[in-house]
């Protein structure tokens, strides 16, 4: 603080002096990567958190059985050095790294994975990604076991009674306490037995076996998602129970995990520092000494920090600064396809939109080329399918024509001779300048092409989500980013009874096709089935894809070993800092 007083004093003297060395300059020697990481992470417990900033941090701190390939595609060895898949594709045997260690020096065992996966499937933890493991035999049944609810109620009553002093308890309460203690123990034993039915087994210390319900060919890719990563049992239990959401084990000093970096410090809303973990099995590969993650939620601030040499990489780039020749004018700009689709969701339960001809007419009268060229302008790609092209080699062949005459024809067939007899349509979107611009363009296209009266409604994020969830909308803006590199992460969301469907569209044939694809081992055959599902989806049009997302951000030229990939996973163990 004292330094600052002096600095205030010499502020004006500073004018005219040379510019100081920036963090990016000094990183050439110190090997510290300065990383713009979006928002402040919720936490660092891989079984609790959700979100992209959290993922960036966890990539540095923990590691799953497999690790994502820095160039995209096939998964690479992680905590498991190799794996074997049974002929029927249902049994996965993972052989763990012999030199695998937790950051406190404990060896990583198959038992750690069993315990960790049991933890995600324990409903009282409230993990938001238990469905990642629903492909495992018995996992869904265990997660939805009604005994957990009974246990939770009995436990809280037991806790209530135990907090009272013994002489304050009535006779009845004392009896209740004794009975409850026994009952809780019995249920815990029953649940532990129930977990034996889940297809997760430690064959020995270094062999971990998983049995799946169906072959699930994307299972390995799914393991690159942090929700399936292990946590250190002793550390978690030292700072809370297995299902304690508020356990303190993720604090600096307490934190133990198995990634290439260790947690060094965590200053809320300021920065998180991770340092190289010399106990990591592949530590020779790691060249960075530290990574400093900055939670910067305002893209303009982040952009200024990058220009001032305070960041090596930004999480985003202000869309208002995007121009068609941005790549020529800004050599640091990176624009890469991203596994995400921007689309408009139709509420098929709505009287007007329940007619597929209306949905098609609306989708056919959107000029996607024009939207990406004149509105978004950051290199986005017009989307003609829900699954982005190139998702693990899957290229959908669906087409959505921009054909105004056809659209008018369809609308006429649906009983609307002209746009004026079409009821007013509402586009719902969450408050954001980018979404507003796209909505304005679509509004204009629908009004000009079909003569439809369109109203734009923007809502705060949470209000927008809740309106979508209860189906209180006609057309709503939406986006979906894949969790793992496989078309299933997209198509699965539109199956009936999926929380993310939100369109009210339920198609048994589509459901059958996606389920069949999950049970098909041969990749070509499987993609053919998924292609049929995609065609069916575009033919039914419960959603109108608009564009495929691109990741637009700035990367300093000193950063090496950073490869574009569709999931935008940049594993820090491959990143180097070198000045040419």
């Amino acid at each position: 603080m004292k330094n600052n007083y002096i600095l205030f004093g010499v502020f004006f003297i500073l004018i005219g002096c040379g510019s100081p060395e920036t963090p990016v300059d000094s990183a050439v020697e110190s090997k510290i990567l300065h990383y713009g990481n979006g928002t402040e992470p919720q936490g660092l417990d891989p079984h609790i958190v959700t979100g992209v900033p959290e993922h960036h941090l966890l990539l540095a701190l923990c590691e799953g059985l497999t690790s994502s390939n820095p160039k995209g595609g096939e998964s690479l060895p992680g905590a498991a050095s190799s794996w074997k898949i049974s002929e029927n594709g249902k049994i996965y045997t993972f052989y763990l790294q012999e030199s695998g260690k937790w950051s406190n020096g404990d060896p990583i065992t198959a038992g750690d994975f069993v315990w960790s996966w049991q933890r995600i499937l324990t409903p009282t933890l409230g993990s938001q990604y238990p469905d990642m493991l629903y492909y495992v035999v018995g996992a869904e049944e265990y997660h939805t076991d009604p005994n957990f609810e009974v246990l939770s109620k009995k436990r809280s009553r037991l806790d209530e009674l135990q907090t009272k002093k013994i002489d304050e308890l009535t006779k009845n309460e004392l009896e209740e306490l004794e009975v409850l203690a026994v009952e809780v123990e019995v249920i815990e034993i029953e649940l532990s037995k129930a977990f034996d039915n889940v297809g997760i087994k430690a064959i020995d210390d270094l062999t971990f076996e998983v049995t799946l319900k169906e072959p699930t060919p994307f299972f390995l890719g799914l393991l690159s998602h942090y929700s399936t990563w292990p946590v250190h049992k002793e550390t978690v239990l030292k700072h809370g129970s297995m299902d304690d959401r508020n356990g303190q084990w993720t604090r600096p000093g307490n934190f133990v995990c198995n990634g290439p970096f260790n947690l060094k410090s965590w200053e809320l809303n300021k920065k998180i520092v991770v340092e190289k973990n010399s106990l990591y099995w592949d530590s020779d590969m790691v060249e960075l000494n530290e990574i400093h993650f900055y939670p910067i939620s305002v893209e303009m601030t982040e952009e200024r920090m990058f220009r001032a040499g305070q960041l090596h990489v930004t999480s985003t780039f202000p869309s208002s600064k995007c121009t068609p020749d941005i790549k020529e004018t800004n050599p640091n700009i990176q624009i890469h396809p991203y596994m995400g689709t921007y689309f408009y969701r139709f509420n098929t339960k709505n009287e007007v939109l329940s007619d597929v001809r209306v949905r098609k007419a609306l989708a056919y009268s959107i000029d996607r080329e024009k939207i990406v060229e004149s509105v978004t302008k950051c290199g986005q790609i017009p989307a003609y399918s829900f699954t982005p092209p190139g998702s693990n080699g899957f290229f959908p062949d669906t087409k959505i024509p921009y054909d105004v005459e056809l659209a008018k024809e369809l609308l006429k067939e649906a009983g609307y001779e002209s746009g004026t007899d079409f009821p007013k349509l509402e586009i719902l979107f969450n408050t954001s300048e980018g979404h507003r611009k796209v909505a304005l363009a679509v509004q204009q296209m629908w009004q000009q092409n079909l003569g439809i009266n369109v109203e734009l409604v923007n809502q705060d994020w949470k209000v927008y989500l809740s309106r979508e969830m209860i189906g209180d909308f006609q057309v709503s803006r939406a986006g979906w980013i894949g969790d793992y590199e496989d078309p299933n992460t997209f198509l699965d969301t539109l199956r009936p009874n999926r929380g993310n469907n939100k369109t009210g569209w339920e198609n048994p044939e589509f459901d059958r096709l996606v389920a069949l694809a999950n049970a098909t081992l041969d990749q070509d055959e499987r993609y053919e089935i998924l292609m049929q599902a995609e065609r069916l989806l575009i033919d039914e049009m419960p959603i109108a894809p608009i564009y495929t997302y691109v990741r637009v951000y700035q990367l300093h030229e000193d950063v090496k070993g950073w490869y574009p990939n569709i999931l935008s996973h940049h594993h820090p163990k491959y990143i180097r800092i070198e000045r040419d």
Partner: protein
Amino acid sequence: MLGIFFRRVLLAIPVLIAVASITFFLVRLAPGGPFDADKAVSEQVLKNLNEAYNLNAPLSEQYFDYMSGIVVGDFGPSFRFPGRSVTELIMTGLPVTFELAIYSMLIALLIGILSGVVAALKRNTFLDYIPMSIAMIGICVPTFLLGPLLVLIFGINLELLPVSGWGQLPGDKILPSLTLGFAYAAYIARLSRGGMLEILNQDFIRTARAKGLSESMVVTKHAMQGGLLPVVSFLGPAIAGLLSGSFVIETIFQIPGLGRFYVEAAFNRDYTMILGTTIFFSFMIVIFNLLSDLAALWLNPRSRDT
């Protein structure tokens, strides 16, 4: 004065209870919940999450649980940051916000009083017109424009100061403090000019001059004490405003203060965090208003004995 103090403190209690109660029910009325996310959570998971934070209980029970918690200083756990309590989050952000407020206030007072007093003494000259015009601009130019403008000049073009951060790079506290300080300096300059002009026309100043006191003695010893009363009254709300309203500056300059927690909590429907920060800010506003009233009373000889 002691009586006034106790009366005001007693009055503050129902005010804080009302603020807490109204906020509690208002945040629950807002559509959307803390666990709504782009990737919808299943009903089972939502039920478990609500259970974990006691949101399944009847609203009245939750209300009484919460109110009995705050009596003993427990604001509950944050929904957005599992494993962190609201008290911890407030205590993390407060020192930073407080430090920023102090620096800004010092800058504001220094610039504001100096230019205000000079303007009053040199009334209707360039030394009056120029600072007052700048003050007018200072009031009109919002911090979200001034901040990036200063960053552009001193951070990007001249490369003299860091463009963001707080205590991370040498000199990174200068630009945010100046930005926030300028806005308040403008108000203080106008208030002190007005106050001084009024006092300088008073009889006791004429008497002081007639006694042959030097102009500097007249101004510093006699005129400023009364002339700066409006500034003192303004200080309470201003500091409270600085503490609760520096969200924009904190966002522009990437400062880990309380303002960011407050606004983000509202967007995230982090019920306990919204409540905790609202109650805390209300408490701050009450306290600083009280302090500035007491200071004004102490400075004003006419009301000192009442």
